[in-house]
């Protein structure tokens, strides 16, 4: 009986020491800090998005196409202007990149990831080579430049649900999308490339 109690006490003490020292699992804590910073930066972008949207007439839930298109264009313009100096890495900042690479590559590597790799090719504008209806110009290439508009008519890639469950949750209207083997942060309401990470997958 006594020996069993002593075992439990030792285990509790060990757990307490590990939790309190802050040194037992530094990579995990550092990873969490980086991901938190990423989330804060994404949130800051969305605050800017909302601030810009508030300067425009809102889109009603039942809108005409003219209202919808005008709102999207005005919103994109306002955001581009207000973050004209933004560069790659503002949200997907350099220190968090290895965390994303590790996470994504582990999800997309090996034979068990065959379906996930197939999923990110679905709708992927650099894989599907989108065509246009007769009489229309083909959609432009998606340009990996911060603040670039996601081209009208270019399809949006699927993102595997398992990957969405593992990546840090993005506040609306930000989304993860794939363009070729690159990951972008897409503002789905303003239709803008907000940031990007190159060569996630071959």
């Amino acid at each position, binding site marked *: 009986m006594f020996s069993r109690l002593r075992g439990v006490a030792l285990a509790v003490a060990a757990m307490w020491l590990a939790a309190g020292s802050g040194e037992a699992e530094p990579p995990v804590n550092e990873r969490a800090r980086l991901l938190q910073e990423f989330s804060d930066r994404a949130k800051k972008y969305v605050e800017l998005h909302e601030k810009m949207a508030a300067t425009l007439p809102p889109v009603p839930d039942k809108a005409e196409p003219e209202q919808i298109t005008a709102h999207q264009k005005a919103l994109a313009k306002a955001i581009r202007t207000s973050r004209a100096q933004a560069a790659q890495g503002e949200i997907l900042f350099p220190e968090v990149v290895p965390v994303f690479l590790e996470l994504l590559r582990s999800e997309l590597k090996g034979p068990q990831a065959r379906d996930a790799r*197939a999923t990110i090719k679905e709708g992927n504008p650099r894989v599907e080579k989108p065509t246009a*209806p007769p009489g*229309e110009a083909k959609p432009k290439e998606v340009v990996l430049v911060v603040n670039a508009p996601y081209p009208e008519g270019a399809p949006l890639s699927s993102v595997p649900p398992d990957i969405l469950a593992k990546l840090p949750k993005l506040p609306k209207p930000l989304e993860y999308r794939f363009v070729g083997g690159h990951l972008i942060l897409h503002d789905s309401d303003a239709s803008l490339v907000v940031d990007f990470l190159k060569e996630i997958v071959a």
Partner: protein
Amino acid sequence: MTGHAAHGAKPLGLLKPLVLLLVGALVTAGSPVVAPPASAAATSLPLKKDSVRFAVIGDSGSGETGQTELARLLAERRADFPFEFVVMMGDNIYGRDDPRDYREKFEEPYAPLLQAGVKFYAALGNHDDPKQRFYEKFNMKGERYYTFKAPQNGVRFFALDSNYMEKPQLEWLEKELAASGSDWKICFFHHPLYSSGKKHGPAEELRKVLEPLFVKHGVDVVLQGHEHFYERMQPQQNIHYFISGAAGKLRPSDIAKSDITARGFDQDLTFMLMEIAGDELYFETISRAGKTVDAGSFKRAPEPKKAS
């Protein structure tokens, strides 16, 4: 699909076309509960009293002649089969999507239906800008995924955004399915969970997260698009899966028939008509040429037992 039957065929001289036609007809023949008529001017649907009647179109928004022709036939068929609403499987507006595209790729082709008060309920496809959710005539109420009930009681629809299936959407779906009680449960979205398409094939990652919810909550029917053909699957875990993605674009001979195909048709544009009366669902799939390419009916499966 008829083209698929020709692979590996030996030269047959003058008999070849005849044999290919025969083989093609056999290969495309599934197991419809009701044998489809060779051609039908009037509907084979029963038009029961107080039934829920609707149409299904997918991948419609090409703005091409074929879309317009099929849309005209859909409107004509309403004289025989007065459906009240249309569900859209996504890719509602291909290519450019400025205001004139909403007109040319949706409002003009379907003008007779819109003028008659027929409502359209859209899901988003991979070619659709999510801003379409605000468009009044798609009845999405500003949401990328939503639910609505048929005008008559007893049938509930769930429109999903299969492009981006993250946790909040899955949680929402689970909650709404659980709350829908004994209604017929019909989910519709863009990417097919089962498909015999050579170009795309099934969205298996999506199936892993959606199918358990469908089974748990007794979803009866799943309607999908993305593949530019028509395919009806053998029921999977008591769920009836249909692909209806050829209302504006066609990918000829793209079906590689598999064991789960009950019926496939990839030689012309198509739409579906559906009728629900009590515990029975009737369906008819019609090509641009006005031919019934599939028809049948089934009873819904018993409700799954509630988890204790």
